[in-house]
């Protein structure tokens, strides 16, 4: 390959789309490194503190598309304090100053300010795509800047962000000349929307294929929008409430018949179940259905709806569907690949919740299932063993028993054997979340069998350091390990310090690790940032080394301790 001119190499590399492949290619020799870096357009950075924006810009001058992730995953569950970090501002500033022609920015769990959005909107003439997932720190004013200034905007996708709603006028900030939108998702916005502006925007966006509305958009507007955009592929309804005997509803029924392209359906943030029949005609075309926010649809109506959806590949649903409902899913949706069952009543007594029976039924009816997130009341070893046998193709298996240390209710034994069967049978498993009563044994199984495992989430499990050791020694491809409330301590933490440089990050909270253990690790491994989150003044500056650390987050980095850490985060 050394005899080929650079352009040929570049052309060959063009066929490599996965960033892992491109990373691998860049390590072959310095020639390939050089060619690769000048031709790279898309970069994925899984931890924004692992590298600096300056280094990114230096290495990849042709950068067009950047993906950044900030806070650790457990921040989703309020385990990370508000000011922890993950600011996108320095990235946007650095990119703005450079000659990078940024076109796409995708952020997850980052803090985004209105100023950042404003700067972004003014700095890149060709900016096309903004995707914000689980971010916070901005308001609709920032959205207004994006709408007003990004002349060629194609995608504005806001997924589950905490956004302060100042007014619904940001939609009106899209100039009349903006006709390039292909995707608009503002479902997570809480406030009112200028409906007329929305209708006009849809009317002048002939390429719009994905539209997800928020709760403030009533059914009348939905009907008018669908009239204008019959080619939609992805629809998220807003408020789906009306009198089923009304003219508006009848118009909607007729309009929906024209929307033969809809494959993804979501929303129903508020819903009148008697209006659901309007969507039955398009259900057969659906490959993806997300009813996880549709608290207003219960048991039998849910089931009636599902019976129409024979081609579903992805289903997100609430546990009020019940085991019986899951049996209907199993018999109807034989193409199902991804299932998520969320709790409708996380802190209640949970009469409606699902059990192991629902999951077993699914495993029988849906052999193509490869991704699962399942919140349930209880689980048995027998069920897990059956599921493992029926569905050997799991890539993601996340089980969450609402009582996190509940044993098998039939045998009263821990669920070690059940999860053991999963990891043994599912040779392609990349992500695993455990729950239920678990001993060190389950970790032995994981270390032994989970060869492809990249991410493991553990809570309230294990008996001793051995548990963690089994995983660290056995899972060669482990990248992210997050542990809470387990009896793992310094011995496990320090047994293989080099391992952490092969991983993205390690989170340990409410474990047995002490300050001494963390300090020792930090001293020995300079290319790790070992951060302690100390929220409650339990630790003074001259804290005793023997004191247990409440929250520790460590990650590999090329740029040393971060300079934006708040007071309560100590980098050791």
């Amino acid at each position: 390959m050394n005899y080929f001119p650079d352009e040929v190499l570049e052309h060959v590399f063009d066929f490599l789309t996965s960033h892992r492949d491109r990373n691998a290619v860049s390590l072959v020799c310095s020639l390939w490194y050089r060619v690769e870096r000048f031709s790279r357009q898309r970069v994925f950075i899984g931890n924004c503190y692992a590298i600096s924006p300056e280094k990114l810009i230096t290495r990849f001058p042709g950068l067009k598309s950047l993906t950044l992730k900030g806070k650790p995953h457990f921040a989703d569950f309020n385990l990370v304090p508000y000011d922890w970090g993950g600011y996108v501002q320095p990235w946007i500033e650095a990119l703005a100053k450079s000659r990078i022609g940024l076109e796409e920015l995708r952020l997850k769990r980052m803090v985004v300010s209105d100023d950042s959005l404003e700067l972004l909107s003014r700095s890149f003439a060709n900016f096309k795509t903004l995707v914000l997932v689980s971010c916070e720190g901005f308001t609709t004013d920032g959205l207004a800047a994006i709408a007003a200034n990004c002349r060629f905007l194609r995608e504005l996708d806001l997924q589950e962000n905490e956004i302060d709603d100042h007014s619904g006028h940001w939609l009106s900030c899209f100039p009349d000349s903006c006709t390039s939108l292909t995707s608009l998702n503002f479902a997570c916005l809480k406030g009112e929307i200028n409906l007329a502006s929305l209708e006009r925007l849809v009317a002048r966006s002939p390429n719009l294929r994905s539209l997800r509305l928020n709760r403030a958009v009533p059914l009348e507007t939905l009907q008018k929008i669908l009239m204008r955009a019959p080619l939609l592929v992805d629809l998220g309804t807003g408020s789906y409430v009306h009198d089923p005997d009304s003219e508006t509803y009848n118009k909607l029924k007729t309009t929906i018949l024209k929307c033969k392209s809809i494959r993804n359906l979501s929303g129903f943030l508020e819903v009148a179940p008697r209006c659901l029949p309007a969507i039955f005609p398009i259900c057969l075309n659906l490959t993806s259905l997300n009813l996880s926010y549709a608290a207003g649809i219960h048991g039998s109506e849910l089931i009636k709806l599902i019976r129409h959806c024979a081609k579903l590949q992805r289903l997100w649903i609430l546990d009020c569907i019940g085991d019986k409902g899951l049996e209907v899913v199993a018999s109807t949706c034989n193409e199902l690949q991804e299932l998520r069952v969320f709790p409708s009543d996380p802190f209640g007594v949970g009469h409606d919740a699902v059990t192991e029976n629902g999951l077993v039924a699914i495993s029988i009816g849906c052999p193509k299932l490869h991704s699962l997130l399942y919140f349930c009341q209880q689980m048995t070893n027998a069920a897990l063993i059956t599921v493992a046998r029926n569905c050997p193709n799991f890539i993601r298996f996340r089980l969450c028993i609402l009582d996190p240390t509940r044993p098998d209710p039939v045998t009263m034994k821990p669920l070690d054997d059940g999860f053991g069967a999963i990891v043994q049978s599912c040779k392609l498993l990349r992500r695993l979340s455990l729950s239920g009563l678990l001993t060190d044994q389950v970790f032995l199984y994981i270390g032994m069998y989970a060869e492809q495992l990249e991410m493991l989430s553990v809570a309230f499990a294990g008996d001793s350091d051995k548990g963690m050791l089994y995983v660290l020694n056995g899972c060669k491809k482990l990248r992210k390990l997050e542990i809470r409330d387990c009896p793992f301590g310094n011995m496990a933490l320090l047994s293989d310090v080099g391992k952490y440089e092969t991983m993205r990050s390690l989170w340990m909270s409410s474990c047995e690790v002490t300050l001494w253990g963390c300090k020792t690790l930090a001293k020995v491994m300079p290319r790790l940032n070992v951060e302690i989150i100390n929220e409650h003044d339990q630790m003074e500056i001259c804290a005793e080394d023997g004191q247990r650390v409440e929250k520790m987050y460590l990650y590999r980095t090329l740029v040393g301790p971060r300079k934006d850490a708040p007071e309560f985060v100590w980098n050791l």
Partner: protein
Amino acid sequence: MQPDTTSESPGSDVTSTVFKDTELTLGLPGEARFSGGKTCSKRGFIETSMDLDLGDSSSSSHTRGKILAGQDFSSESLVSGAGKPSATKRQEVVGWPPVRSLRKRALEGCKYVKVAVDGAPYLRKVDLEIYNSYQKLLRTLEQMFMTCFAIHGNYVGEGERKVMDPMKEMEYVPTYEDTDGDWMLVGDVPWKMFIESCKRIRLMKSSEAVGTLAPRTHPRSCTYNEVAADQQLKAR
């Protein structure tokens, strides 16, 4: 904008109030900590965390599985279980179950109450959380019971609080049952307080209310609290 994200963070005031209700108690072996599922697990969540070897008892402040990380548990609060009634609600551990706040809030914000209209053959249900004012609520009720009546009057500040049926020339007074079991007139308290305390709504025929209402010469001169008090005396 930030308060939402910190409202569940350990050590905040909100969680310490919740903690009072869900204090860790040591249950006796076999005692159900909560009634989820048919077969109650012998080792509940709390018993489990107490059983496991966590070093000496003085480290009780760092009990695994402790509720609301950051609270200092004295050994007393951990052992005080004997006299306490077993919790019917699951005790809240920070970050468990692992559901994102946005999702939790979207589901919690689901407050369906029954609406009964005197003379209508069936009841309806509305989700109070989706309205942010009395006006919006009553407009929706109007739509629901379209053939029966039309809403009359405005609900911003003082004003008529009656519901009119122009066809039958009947007036309806919107009332609700609060968490104390009392029947109140809709509109007295701030909206947020109303949502929290309203258990169900009844549109009462004015004629029935008339006998219980203090005579009114001028709508604004009458205090609705008096009216409500009267209604309560006569109700049930």
